[in-house]
């Protein structure tokens, strides 16, 4: 091949790359049908659940799940929650919703679920809004996105199990 041919091919390559850059998706876009948690449950070191009624923190230790005071979590609810987060198949409702976030139940009244690995790196930050009208699922969105997901009510079930199995506040570590 001559140098002219090589130059033309390089120009064509630059043109194609420019087209992809200009017209293609910007940044990393997730498959909306992907489960919320894309890592294995074993990689999770900390779960935080924050809502107006209070805050729960669950930490993985060699002896099992514990609260920050070292009290054991007498249930496998944290594992069940992580399994659910890794298997739920949400449906995306709106990629860029113009509706006020409060209509989905987001904002100050929402539940915030924060899943981190053992080093403190974020694995999932999920804002969980209100139920859909049929009560079959909840609206949710990942941190930093406006994409509203419909996540099955099994998530709420697992969160309830987590809340209900928290060590009593007066229990000894």
């Amino acid at each position, binding site marked *: 091949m001559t140098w002219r041919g090589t130059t033309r091919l390089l120009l064509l390559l630059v043109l194609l790359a420019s087209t992809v850059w200009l017209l293609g998706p910007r940044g990393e876009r997730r498959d909306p049908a992907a489960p919320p948690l894309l890592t294995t449950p074993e990689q999770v070191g900390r779960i935080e*659940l924050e*809502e107006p*009624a*209070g*805050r*729960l*923190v669950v930490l993985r230790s060699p002896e099992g799940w514990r*609260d920050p005071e070292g009290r054991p979590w007498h249930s496998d609810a944290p594992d069940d929650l992580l399994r*659910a987060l890794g*298997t*739920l*198949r*949400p449906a995306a409702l709106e990629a860029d919703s113009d509706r006020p976030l409060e209509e989905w139940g987001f904002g100050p009244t929402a539940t915030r679920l924060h899943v981190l690995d053992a080093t403190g790196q974020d694995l999932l930050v999920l804002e969980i809004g209100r139920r859909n009208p*049929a*009560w*079959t*699922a909840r609206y949710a969105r990942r941190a930093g996105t406006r994409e509203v997901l419909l*996540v*099955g*009510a*099994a*998530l709420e*079930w697992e969160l*309830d*199990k987590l*809340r*209900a*199995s*928290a*060590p*009593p*506040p007066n229990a000894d570590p």
Partner: protein
Amino acid sequence: MRKLTRRPWMALAMALALATGPARGAEDTPWILDANNWQEGKDLLPEPVLKRLQAGEYWFKVVPVDPAAFRSNYAKKFWDATAANAGKYDLDEKTCGLRDKATGKIPDFVVGLPFPTIDRSDPLVACKIAQNFAFAGNQGGGGGATFTLNGVDTGGQFRRVKAFLHAMSYQGRLDGKIENNPDNLAAQAVGAAIEPIDVEGVSTLTKRYWDWESQDAIWAYVPSTRRARRVNAASRSDPVAGLDIFSDDLNCYAGKIEYYKWKLLGEGQVLAPVLRPQPFPFSPTSSPSRFNVEIPYMTAGYEKPGSKGAPWWIQENLVFVPRPVWILEGQSEDPYYNFGKVVMFFDKEIYRIYWKLVHNRAGEYFYTAACGYHFVKNDEQYSAVYPNLVIGVNDKTNRAALGGRYQTSFVERNWDPNYFSLRTLTRLTD
């Protein structure tokens, strides 16, 4: 840290029974739970049901019953057999299958509840509860009924199928072991559609093997093709006749115990749907082994002009007894099974499932079934408990199906095992 529990069904689920007594259960007089006093149902009903109660779609005639009287719906022979089972059985950890402690193998024959006492700290407690459920249901040994399946939406009934079901059990029967069991079965059944004409003769044969590993063997016969085909056991999670009801709704769980992975979530109280809290007598027929049971029809809203509530809600001959329950999660690992996580409410003493909440495999809740029963007993030597109602409600589509509601059924204490065959299936429409 404070507990964040705030939902009634989790209040049921998470051992909050410690804090909750029956709303009005201490009283002996029947009372009505409806939209006017719906708050009293908060700790007695699953949340999707409570929502419909609050909206005025459902109402409940609550009949408190003395626990000892309710327990005596099962004959003394059953409870004696249960007591005699203490310490005899444990479970195969891998499969949840029942194991004879003396031999380390599956027991030869079991009658009564295999686990008379339940210890919440036992790692296999959920399997034990589920096994008790299976054996409570088998005590009658066999029977049959002709029933209807009614698809009902907010406008009324849109489809009706009439069918029959005949069943016999080899395990758990109060009449004792059947020696002639060459296929090593636990139970078998034949079911067939009778009406409308386009589904007449569509039928199934089910054989459940008495082992820990086998799937149920199910054959389906379609008269137009004159072929009986083997179908997957997971088809129990397929809608029946396109309605919002599933084969697995019979007794609220119709599968083999080993088919699910079970987990105990907690305990609580629920309103248990029963035709009446006392047993029905059975009357003799020309056959020495067959007895008829006459029960009243449960009229639904769509059948009664001016009725109160949803068109599928039962208006007559159904009462609700406050009962203590275990709350279990069950989930199949079979990829062909349509249900995801199923939450079930098991009576802590007589081991019937009264309610179940079903999620699909994507984790979306979509369906609640209420499972009603009646009891049959003439003396303390024989008793049976039969499912007579399923109210299956698809909350996603706001549609329901009613199953059961038969007026007569029969107890058969000596089925000819050869009746449960492909030959019967293929000749039903001859």
